[in-house]
């Protein structure tokens, strides 16, 4: 039987091209960041440094937070609350999304709840949860999770509906046991949209948690922002938020994106 010839994947010119492409992408990212800093500086001049402090002043103010001793403790406590809330939201949305996407009766009966949940104002949920569970970290996590869960559930639910029944059919013909089909054919198909749900969910969790801290906690990034806002010290407001923004970005680019590229390397592989 004839052997099918495969194109040589390890072409040196191709690799050099890819490298040049990466260098160019990095240059654009740096230029984009520089442009953002310039725009920030420009707006600061326009509206006045007492409303929007200049970038350099904000960055220097971070040192003051460090000197006061709460820079790292604020970041740590906020990160802890975000992770707790995110874990709850992830579990809830995967269970709910799987139920809604795979069980017809559940979809008809409980589907509207997700829509309703998504339209309840965040403030109402935060206040109710603080009243019900007390003003503590647990309530902050549960409240944030309840606000974030509906949009994550929508993402998982949509994905579950998109699972390809043809692959399950194939596995059944080849007499693959039921549990193995679930584990090796269905679950891997859910990974891409669980990943998407997790990424958007984490970003949303961080933004909501700042609010939740502001309303009922006496530590963390959100509390610190409110504290300095009351003192009308805008330098310190920005300085409170900036380190955590950098942390979130570092997590996105340093952990999530490389992980996604590795887990879904089969998707990027183009036919040549």
């Amino acid at each position, binding site marked *: *039987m*004839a*052997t*099918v010839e*495969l194109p040589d*994947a390890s072409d040196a010119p191709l690799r050099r091209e890819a490298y040049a492409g990466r260098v160019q992408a990095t240059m654009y990212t740096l230029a984009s960041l520089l442009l953002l800093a310039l725009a920030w500086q420009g707006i600061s001049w326009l509206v006045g440094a007492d409303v929007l402090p200049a970038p350099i002043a904000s960055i220097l103010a971070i040192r003051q937070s460090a000197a006061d001793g709460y820079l790292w403790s604020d970041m740590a406590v906020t990160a802890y609350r975000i992770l707790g809330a995110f874990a709850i939201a992830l579990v809830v949305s995967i269970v709910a999304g799987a139920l809604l996407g795979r069980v017809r009766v559940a979809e008809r009966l409980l589907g509207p709840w997700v829509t309703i949940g998504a339209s309840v104002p965040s403030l109402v949920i935060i206040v109710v949860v603080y009243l019900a569970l007390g003003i503590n970290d647990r309530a902050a996590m549960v409240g944030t999770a309840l606000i974030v869960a509906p949009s994550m559930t929508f993402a998982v639910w949509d994905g579950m509906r998109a699972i390809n029944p*043809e*692959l399950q*059919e*194939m*596995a*059944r*013909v*080849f*007499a*693959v*046991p039921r549990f*193995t089909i679930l584990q*090796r*054919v269905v679950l*891997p198909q859910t990974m891409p949209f669980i990943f998407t749900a997790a990424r958007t969910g984490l970003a949303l969790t961080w933004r909501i948690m700042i609010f939740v801290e502001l309303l009922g906690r006496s530590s963390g990034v959100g509390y610190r922002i409110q504290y300095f806002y009351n003192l009308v010290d805008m330098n310190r407001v920005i300085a409170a938020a900036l380190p955590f923004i950098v942390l979130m970005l570092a997590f996105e680019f340093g952990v999530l994106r490389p992980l996604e590229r590795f887990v*879904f*390397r*089969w*998707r990027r*592989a*183009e*036919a*040549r």
Partner: protein
Amino acid sequence: MSARLVFRGLSRVFQNGRHTSPAISGLDLTLEAGSFTAIVGPSGGGKTTLLHIAAGLDTQYTGEFTREPATATLAMLFQQPRLLPWRSARDNVAFVLETRGVTTPDARRRADELLALVGLAAAGDKFPAQLSGGMQQRVALARALAVDPDLLLMDEPFSALDELTAGRLREELLALSAQKVRTILFVTHDIAEACYLAERVVVLSAHPGRVVGEVRIDLPRQRRPDDPRLAEYAGRVLAFIDHGMTAGAPA
């Protein structure tokens, strides 16, 4: 040990809301062990339904269907390759072995042998998305052969490929089917393909599907696609199809 299939008085009705449409009605057909049978008929007929019943995917039929022995090993080639996109070509073939209790290293070794057999010795590490449609279908063929099936079901496996690739794969399938005896049921709407590959071509009518005739292809297993006798056989199959169209039309 190859399988023998018997369909007797087989009917399958699809319920679409209040609308019912019979896909197969009173079909009688026996596939002898080790035979290579092609089923042809107009599209929208019961060809794929019949294949799904034979595969055990569809059990909502009335009438009788038996597979002897009941424990026969099945494999199927679909119109689309239906590979797991997150597994390499090697691991796609190994998958059906691992789920049968073969250890992963053994399954991978066997997968490499089978990939070599279908001409893809160098493609083991490639993901399906890195392979052309024809190569993907070769991987699917290797996967089907991996379980050493007693019954090989094929649902228009070459119809989504370009003619050049399809022709080459047909040749290779013919060579493989000559190497080892197993029961093969091949569904297609391509009359020339059916006559070239099969020992026996069964013609189904459309709406509802029933057997309107069959043609035995009395040629040696080693055939050439341009054999002039094939055109003769194709003409006889076509006559049955025309007959089936008029006979199957509502009165």
